[in-house]
C-alpha cells in the first residue's frame, strides 16, 4: 500500500477550492481555477482527429455523399452539412454555417449551441421577472420563451461561450444538473407516455407513484441517469413548435422512430415540402439519446458519460475526462474497464457493427433516391396530386427512417440491431413507394 499513501498530498489538492463559484460565474476559466484537471480536458475539445466513421474533422458531408443533396432538396441541410466536432466549436460552427448565413433562423437554435443559462436569466429579468426569482427554474423557462422567438442574429449576441460548467453543474455541490427547459418538457411528456423505459428506472418509479408533481429530473433522476440526461438536453431529435418557435422534443408517444413519427402526424408537423416531389417530409437531427435508449448499453445502465467522458487517471487522482469526443480515440478508458479485450479487438468489433450499418445505409439512400426520382418523373408526366398521395406518404416515412439513422452520429453503434431494423423499414417503404408510382406512370415499353 506504500505507493497509495505516498500520493496522499497530491490527492488532497484536487478538491481545494481557490476561488468562489456562484450561479453567476459564467466563464469556465474561473471554474478551472478550482478544477484545473477537468478544465484542462474541457479545453481539449478543440482537437480535430478523424475516426473511421466519426471524429472531429468538420468536412462537408454533402460532397462525401451527394445523394443527400437530392434527399434534402429544398431544405437548408442540402446547402451545408458537416461532420460534427468538439464542444469548443459549437457556437462558431453554428454562427458560420450556411444554414444560418443563407436562411433565417430563430434564437431557439442557441439552446444547444451555447452556455445559455445566464442569458436566459438576464432575458427573464428584462422581461419583468422579480430579481429574487432569478435563480429559479421559472427564470430559465421565462428566458427560454423569450429567446426562442428572437431572430438568431439578435439572440446570438446574448451569449459568449459554448456549453460550459454552469450549464451542467451546480456550482455549490458540483453535482450534474439539468438546465434546459426543452428537456424538462420532453422528459415529462415521456414520463406521461406509456412507452416502457427500463433504462430510466426513475421514470418507471414516477409512473408507479401518485403523479402529484410532474417528473423532475433534477430531483427524481439517479446520478447514473443524469450522466446521460445531461447530454440528452441536446443530443436529441427536435423541432420548433408553432407559434413561438418553442424548442420541442417529440417524445409524447415514446422514443422509438415510429412513435416520434406518430407524434409529428398527430400535430400535423412537416419540416419542409420536398422540391422535386412535393411531398411534405421530415428532417431528423442527432437522435443519439433516442437510439441509445433502444440499445443494450442503456439497458445495462451504461451512460453517455461512461464512454464519452470516462474516468481518466491523472497522477494520483482520477477525473471525468471533459474532452468529450469519440470513444474510439481513447478505447482504454472508454471501453476496457468493462471489456477486457485488446484495443484492436474492441475497435474491430465497432467496425463490424458500423460497416454493417453503412452498407444498409447505402441501400436505404439508394431506395429513397429511387423513389424521389420516380415521383419526380411521374409528376413531370402529369400525375395528379391524388394519384401521387400514397407515394408521397411513403416517401415521408421511408425518408424519415433513413434520415433518423443517418443523422444519428454513432453509425449504428448505440443500438446496432435497432438501427438495422429502422433501415430495413426505410428500404421496404421506399421500394413500396416505387411500386405505387409504377402503377400510375406510363410504362417504358419493354419485351
Amino acid at each position, binding site marked *: 500500500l506504500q505507493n497509495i499513501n505516498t500520493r496522499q498530498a497530491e490527492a488532497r489538492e484536487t478538491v481545494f477550492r481557490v476561488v468562489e463559484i456562484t450561479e453567476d460565474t459564467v466563464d469556465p476559466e474561473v471554474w478551472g481555477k478550482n478544477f484545473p484537471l477537468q478544465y484542462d480536458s474541457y479545453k481539449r475539445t478543440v482537437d480535430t482527429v478523424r475516426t473511421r466513421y466519426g471524429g472531429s474533422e468538420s468536412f462537408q458531408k454533402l460532397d462525401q455523399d451527394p445523394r443527400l443533396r437530392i434527399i434534402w432538396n429544398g431544405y437548408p441541410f442540402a446547402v451545408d452539412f458537416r461532420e460534427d466536432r468538439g464542444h469548443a466549436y459549437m457556437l462558431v460552427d453554428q454562427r458560420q454555417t450556411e444554414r444560418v448565413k443563407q436562411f433565417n433562423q430563430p434564437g431557439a437554435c442557441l439552446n444547444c449551441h451555447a452556455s445559455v443559462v445566464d442569458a436566459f436569466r438576464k432575458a427573464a429579468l428584462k422581461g419583468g421577472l422579480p430579481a429574487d426569482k432569478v435563480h429559479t427554474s421559472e427564470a430559465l423557462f421565462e428566458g427560454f420563451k423569450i429567446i426562442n422567438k428572437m431572430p438568431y442574429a439578435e439572440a446570438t449576441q446574448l451569449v459568449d461561450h459554448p456549453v460550459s460548467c454552469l450549464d451542467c453543474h451546480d456550482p455549490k*455541490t458540483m453535482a450534474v444538473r439539468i438546465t434546459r427547459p426543452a428537456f424538462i418538457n420532453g422528459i415529462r411528456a415521456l414520463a406521461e407516455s406509456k412507452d416502457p423505459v427500463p433504462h430510466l428506472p426513475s421514470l418507471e418509479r414516477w409512473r408507479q407513484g401518485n403523479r402529484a408533481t410532474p417528473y423532475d429530473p433534477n430531483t427524481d433522476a439517479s446520478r447514473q441517469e443524469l450522466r446521460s440526461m445531461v447530454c440528452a438536453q441536446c443530443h436529441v431529435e427536435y423541432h420548433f413548435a408553432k407559434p413561438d418557435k418553442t424548442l420541442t422534443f417529440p417524445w409524447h408517444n415514446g422514443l422509438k422512430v415510429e412513435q416520434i413519427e406518430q407524434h409529428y402526424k398527430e400535430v400535423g408537423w412537416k419540416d419542409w415540402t420536398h422540391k422535386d416531389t412535393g411531398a411534405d417530409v421530415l428532417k431528423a437531427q442527432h437522435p443519439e439519446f433516442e437510439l441509445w435508449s433502444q440499445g443494450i448499453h442503456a439497458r*445495462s445502465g451504461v451512460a453517455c458519460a461512461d464512454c464519452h467522458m470516462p474516468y481518466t487517471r491523472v497522477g494520483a487522482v*482520477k477525473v471525468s475526462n471533459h474532452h468529450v469526443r469519440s470513444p474510439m480515440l481513447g478505447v482504454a478508458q472508454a471501453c476496457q474497464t468493462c471489456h*477486457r479485450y485488446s484495443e484492436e479487438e474492441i475497435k474491430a468489433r465497432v467496425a463490424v457493427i458500423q460497416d454493417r450499418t453503412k452498407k444498409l445505409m447505402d441501400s436505404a439512400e439508394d431506395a429513397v433516391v429511387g423513389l424521389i426520382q420516380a415521383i419526380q418523373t411521374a409528376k413531370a408526366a402529369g400525375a395528379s396530386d391524388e394519384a401521387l398521395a400514397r407515394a408521397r406518404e411513403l416517401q415521408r416515412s421511408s425518408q424519415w427512417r433513413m434520415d433518423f439513422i443517418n443523422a444519428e452520429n454513432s453509425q449504428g453503434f448505440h443500438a446496432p440491431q435497432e438501427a438495422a431494423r429502422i433501415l430495413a423499414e426505410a428500404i421496404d417503404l421506399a421500394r413500396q413507394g416505387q411500386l405505387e408510382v409504377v402503377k400510375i406512370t406510363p410504362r417504358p415499353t419493354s419485351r
Partner: protein
Amino acid sequence: MTDKNGTRWRWIGIAAVVLVGVLVGTGAYTAQRAQALSYLSNDPKACVNCHIMRDVYDSWQKAPHHAAAVCVDCHLPHDFVGKWLAKAENGWNHSKAFTLQNFHEPIRIHAKNAAILEHNCIGCHQNLIGGVLQAQTSYGQAHAEYAADDKGAHLGCVNCHKDVGHGP
C-alpha cells in the same frame, strides 16, 4: 441440481434446522462440521472450507487484487464491531444456506454485503477517487440506491470494475 434432489435437500435441511433450533450445541456442531467457524479467521483458505466458495477463491487468485487484498478486506467491515457482527451474520447465513441448499445459483452478493464491499473499495482507494467523491454530494445517495434495481442505476465501483475481485 434436479428438482428431485432439490426437495430432498430441502427436507433434510429443514430437519437440520429444527435440530439446530432445539439444541444450540448441535447448531455449533453444524457450524463446526461446515467449518463456518472459519469465519473467525482472515485466511482466505478459511472461506474455501466450503467447496461452494471454490470458484470465487480460484477466481480471486487470478484477479488483480490477490496480492493486495484478501476476502475479508473486501467483504467484511473493517471496524472491529461491525466486522464481528458481519462475521456472525454471514457465518450463520452461509452455514444455514449450505445446509438448506436453498440459495440462488449462481451465487450473487446480497445488497447489504455489496454496500460493505463498496465501502471497502473506497476505504483503500480514497485518495485516488477522493476528488470525484467530494466533488459530488450526490454521491451520498449512492448506497441508498442499492435496493433500487440491478440495472446499474446506482453508480457503484463495481458498475465499471466488475472484474477486480474475481476477474472477468
